[in-house]
C-alpha cells in the first residue's frame, strides 16, 4: 500500500498539470481565461517574513488592473490577474514563476520584492522568454532583457542623496545597513562617491536580518560623531534602530539619518514621532504634488481603506502596469519580443511625475526627491531633481564608479 | 471498604488483570502474593486510578469509583506507596512530606514538628533539608511511607515496601506496618514477597497468577504447603 501512496502523489501532480484549464479555474474561482482576456501573474509573498511589505504592492497592482479593465482593458481584452504566493521563499518564487509562464501562459508577471526573489525568477523568465515587472528600488548592476525595472537604480536614489547630504548637511558619513546585497552594494557606491567628493566614511556597520538590539551600534555612533547616518536597513530593523536611537536621546538635531528603505508604510510601523526630522530619498511620496497623485491616493484609499498609505514601491507597482498596458497596445500583441520592442520610449504620467522606459536597460526615467519626515507620518519634499533622471544601473556615466562596475 | 468486582484492566490493548475480584474489609490488612509480573502492581495502580478499568467496577465505601481520578481517590483517603518509591527527587525531604498533606481532607497546611511520622522514622527529621533524590534506597522508602502517612489516609496500598531494603530497616518498616494495623486500625492492602512477614501480619490473603486470583484464604491457611503450587515456576 505504501508504494502505491508514493505513486499516487506522482499521479496527483500529473492530473493537476495535464489539464491547464481546470487548474487555473482552481486557482481563483471566478477567473476564466478565454479569448477575450489576457492573463497576467501577480507574484508576491503573501505569507512569511516578506508579506509585511509585499501585500501592499500586490494591492497597488490590483488597483491598476481594475482601473485599466474599467477603461476597456488592453487590446479590448480584460486583464485577468492570477495571484500566486511566493511565501518569502526563493524556490517557491521560481517555481511559481514557471507555473505562471508554462501553465497559465501569462503575458507578464508583476512581482517580487527582494533581490533574492527577483534573481530567482530571472532565469525562469529568461528561459521561457517571459516578462517580469519589478517595482522596487534596488542595487543596480543588472539588466535582463526579460525584466523591466520600475524602481530606482542607484543613480536615481543613492547618488543624488549623497550629493545633497554632502552639500547641505555634512561630510562625515556613518553607513548602516542590513547584511544583504543592496546595502553592501549601496555602501560601496557611497564610499566611492564620497572619496570623489572629499567626504569621509567614519564607520560601516551591517546587522543581520531580524537584528533587534542597536545599542552597540549606537555606542559606535556616539564614539564616531558623524554628521550623517546613511541608513540602508531593511523594513523590520528600522523599527528597532530608530526607537533605540530616540531612546538614547539622539534626535535629528544631533545627527541626520537618511534612509532609502523607509517609506510611508514603514513610518506607520516605526512611529512618526521618532522619525520626525529625518530624511528619505525616493522618487515618490504620498504628498507628491501632482494631479495624477491626488487621484491615485484617493483611489487607493477608496479601494483599501482610509487608513492605508501609499509609498514609492506601491506607486511604482501601480504605474508599471500602465507602462506594460501601453506597450502592449503599441505592439498590438502580448508577445514578449514585440512588447519589449514597443516598450522603449513609452511614457506615462505617473503619480510621481512623468516616467519613461529607457530602451537600453529597461529601467525607467524618474524624478528624484528627498523628503523630510513630518509629525503626521508624511514626507515634506525638500529637494527634487527637477526632471526625470536617466537610469544608469551600472553607473557608467560616473568616473568615480569605475572600480565598482 | 474497598471492593473489586470482576475487574479487567491493563496497558493499552493487552489486559494484564482478568476477572479479578477482591475485598478489603475495614480495619483489616489484606496481603496480595504472587510471582513476578503476574500483575500485582497493576492491580494497585488500577485501584489508585492510574490505569483505566476495561470491565467490572471498583467500589469504595460502597460507591462506584471507576471513573474517579487518582487525585480524587487520594483526597478521599486512599494512600498509595508505589513500588520503586517514586519520591520527588529534586524536592527536599520536608517538601516531600508537605506534599503528602495535599491529600488531607482537613486542609491542614503544616506538619507539626512532633508528628507521628517522625517517631516512626526519626532519620527523616535529621534529613529534612536534603534533596529527596540524594537519600539512599532505604531512606527513600521510609520517606515514601511517611509521605503517605501524613495525609492520614483511611486505606493504604503498599507495593513491596521492603524490596531492596537493608534488613534492619526492613524490620523498622515491618514494625511500622504492624503498629499501623494494631494501634491505628488502618485498612491496608499489602503486596509482599516476604512470606514470613506476610504470614505474620495478614488478616486475609489473596494469591495472584497471570492476572487472576487463584487462591485466597484466612491467615491460618497461609502456609508454605498451600502456597507452594502457586508461587513456584
Amino acid at each position, binding site marked *: 500500500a505504501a508504494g502505491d501512496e508514493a505513486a499516487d502523489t506522482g499521479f496527483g501532480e500529473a492530473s493537476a498539470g495535464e489539464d491547464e484549464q481546470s487548474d487555473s479555474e482552481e486557482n481563483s474561482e471566478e477567473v476564466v481565461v478565454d479569448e477575450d482576456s489576457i492573463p497576467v501573474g501577480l507574484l508576491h509573498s503573501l505569507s512569511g517574513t516578506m508579506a509585511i511589505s509585499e501585500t501592499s504592492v500586490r494591492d497597488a497592482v490590483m488597483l491598476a488592473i481594475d482601473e485599466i479593465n474599467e477603461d476597456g482593458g488592453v487590446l479590448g481584452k480584460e486583464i485577468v490577474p492570477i495571484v500566486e504566493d511566493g511565501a518569502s521563499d526563493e524556490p517557491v518564487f521560481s517555481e511559481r514563476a514557471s507555473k505562471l509562464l508554462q501553465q497559465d501562459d501569462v503575458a507578464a508577471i508583476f512581482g517580487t520584492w527582494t533581490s533574492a526573489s527577483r534573481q530567482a525568477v530571472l532565469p525562469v523568465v529568461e528561459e521561457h522568454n517571459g516578462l517580469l515587472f519589478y517595482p522596487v528600488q534596488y542595487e543596480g548592476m543588472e539588466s535582463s532583457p526579460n525584466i523591466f525595472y520600475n524602481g530606482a537604480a542607484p543613480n536615481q536614489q543613492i547618488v543624488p542623496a549623497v550629493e545633497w547630504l554632502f552639500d547641505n548637511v555634512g561630510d562625515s558619513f556613518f553607513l548602516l545597513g542590513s547584511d544583504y546585497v543592496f546595502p553592501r552594494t549601496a555602501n560601496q557606491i557611497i564610499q566611492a562617491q564620497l572619496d570623489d567628493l572629499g567626504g569621509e566614511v567614519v564607520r560601516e556597520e551591517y546587522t543581520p536580518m531580524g537584528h533587534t538590539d542597536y545599542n552597540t551600534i549606537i555606542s559606535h555612533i556616539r564614539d564616531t560623531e558623524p554628521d550623517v547616518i546613511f541608513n540602508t536597513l531593511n523594513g523590520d530593523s528600522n523599527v528597532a534602530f530608530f526607537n533605540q536611537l530616540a531612546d538614547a536621546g539622539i534626535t535629528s538635531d544631533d545627527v541626520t539619518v537618511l534612509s532609502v528603505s523607509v517609506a510611508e508604510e514603514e513610518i506607520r510601523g516605526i512611529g512618526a514621532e521618532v522619525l520626525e526630522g529625518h530624511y528619505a530619498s525616493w522618487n515618490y511620496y504620498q504628498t507628491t504634488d501632482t494631479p495624477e497623485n491626488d487621484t491615485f491616493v484617493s483611489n487607493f484609499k477608496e479601494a483599501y481603506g482610509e487608513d492605508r498609505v501609499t509609498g514609492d514601491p506601491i506607486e511604482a507597482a501601480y504605474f508599471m502596469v500602465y507602462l506594460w498596458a501601453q506597450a502592449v497596445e503599441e505592439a498590438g500583441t502580448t508577445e514578449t519580443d514585440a512588447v519589449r520592442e514597443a516598450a522603449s520610449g513609452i511614457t506615462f504620467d505617473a503619480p510621481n511625475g512623468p516616467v519613461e522606459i529607457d530602451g537600453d536597460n529597461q529601467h525607467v526615467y524618474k524624478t528624484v526627491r528627498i523628503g523630510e519626515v513630518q509629525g503626521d507620518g508624511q514626507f515634506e519634499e525638500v529637494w527634487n531633481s527637477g526632471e526625470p533622471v536617466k537610469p544608469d544601473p551600472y553607473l557608467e556615466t560616473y568616473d568615480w564608479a569605475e572600480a565598482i562596475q | 471498604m474497598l471492593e473489586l468486582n470482576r475487574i479487567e484492566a491493563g496497558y493499552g490493548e493487552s489486559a494484564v488483570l482478568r476477572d479479578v475480584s477482591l475485598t478489603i474489609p475495614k480495619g483489616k490488612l489484606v496481603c496480595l502474593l504472587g510471582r513476578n509480573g503476574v500483575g500485582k502492581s497493576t492491580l494497585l495502580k488500577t485501584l489508585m486510578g492510574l490505569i483505566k478499568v476495561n470491565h467490572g467496577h471498583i467500589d469504595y465505601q460502597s460507591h462506584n469509583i471507576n471513573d474517579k481520578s487518582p487525585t480524587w481517590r*487520594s483526597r478521599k483517603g486512599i494512600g498509595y506507596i508505589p513500588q520503586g518509591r517514586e519520591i520527588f527527587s529534586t524536592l527536599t525531604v520536608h517538601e516531600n512530606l508537605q506534599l503528602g498533606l495535599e491529600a488531607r481532607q482537613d486542609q491542614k497546611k503544616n506538619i507539626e514538628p512532633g508528628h507521628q511520622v517522625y517517631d516512626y522514622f526519626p532519620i527523616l527529621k535529621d534529613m529534612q533539608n536534603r534533596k529527596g533524590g540524594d537519600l539512599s534506597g532505604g531512606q527513600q522508602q521510609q520517606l515514601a511511607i511517611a509521605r503517605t502517612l501524613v495525609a492520614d489516609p483511611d486505606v493504604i496500598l503498599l507495593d513491596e515496601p521492603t524490596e531492596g531494603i537493608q534488613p534492619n530497616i526492613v524490620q523498622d518498616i515491618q514494625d511500622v506496618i504492624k503498629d499501623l494495623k494494631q494501634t491505628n486500625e488502618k485498612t491496608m492492602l499489602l503486596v509482599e514477597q516476604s512470606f514470613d512477614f506476610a504470614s505474620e501480619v495478614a488478616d486475609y490473603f489473596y494469591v495472584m497468577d497471570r492476572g487472576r486470583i487463584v487462591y485466597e484464604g484466612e491467615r491460618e491457611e497461609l502456609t508454605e504447603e498451600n502456597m507452594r503450587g502457586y508461587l513456584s515456576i
Partner: protein
Amino acid sequence: MSSVAMQIFNGISLGSVLLLVAMGLAITFGLMRVINMAHGDLIMIGAYVTYLMQVIFVQYIPEQFFDWYFILAIPAAFIIVAGIGMLLEFTVIRHLYGRPLDSLLATFGAGLILQQLIRTIFGAPNVGVQSPSFLQGSLEIFGLYLPFSRLFMIGLVIVCLGGLFIYLYRTRQGRRVRAVMQNREMATCVGISSRKVDSLTFAMGAGFAGVAGCTLTLIGPIGPTIGLNYIVDAFMVVVVGGVGALTGTVIGALGIGVFNTFFEYWTNASMGKVLIFALIIAFLQWRPSGLFSMKTRSLD
C-alpha cells in the same frame, strides 16, 4: 573607559531583554520539558495585545491618559496570552508530556496557526506602537546615557523574576508545580490535581511570554513573524543556564547579553552573532547540561 561602561550596561540591558524573552520558556521548557516552539508566537501575540490596547486608548480614552495604555497592557498581555496558552495546553500540549521532541514539532505547527491568525486579523504589515512618554529619552549620569525604556525593562525583569521565585519556592502552589513537573503520576497519587497544575503552569509560562511581547514593543518591530527573531535566543538562554534552573537562566541571559555586546563592539553585528552562537556550542561541549544542572541521582 566610559565606552566600556556603556557596553557593560548595553550587555546587561540586552541580557534583560533575553531574560524577559526566555523567562516564559524557562517555565514551559525548563520546568515542563515542552519544547515550545510557539513561544515566539506567544511573544508576538503579547505585542499585538499592547498594540490593541493602544488602539483602544486612542479611540475611546481622553488623550491625557494615553500613557496609561502601556501600564494596563502589561497585565492584559499576561492574562490574554496566558489564556491562549491555556487553550494551547488543553488542545495540544497535554497529549505530549513526556514526548519533548514531539512537542517541538507540534508547537511549531501551532505557531504557524497563531501567525496566520494574527495576519488574518491585523494584516501582514507591521503595526506601530508608540512608547509611553515616560519611557522615552534617557537618563544621563557620568556621561552615560541609560535609556529609560531599558531601565524599565531591567526593573520589570527583576520584579517578574522575584515574583516567580517566590511563587515557585515559597508557596504551596509552587511546590505542587515542582512536584507535578517531576513526577506527574505520583503527584496525582498524593492528591494534587496535575491537570490543573499543568494547565496553570503552562498558562503562566505563556503569560510571561505575553509580558515579554509587551515590553518588546518598546524596542523592536511588531509583525506576525517577529517570534522568529527571539525564539532561538530564548532556547539558548535556557539551555546555557541549565534546564530547570532559574538562577541558571538569569546568569545565562546576562552572560550571553554581555558577551554578545562585546563581540559585536569589537567586530560587527553579524560576526558578533556568529561568535556568540559558536561560543554557546563550544560551551555546551564543555558543560552539556548547562551552567546549573538539576542533576540528582534518580534523574539519570
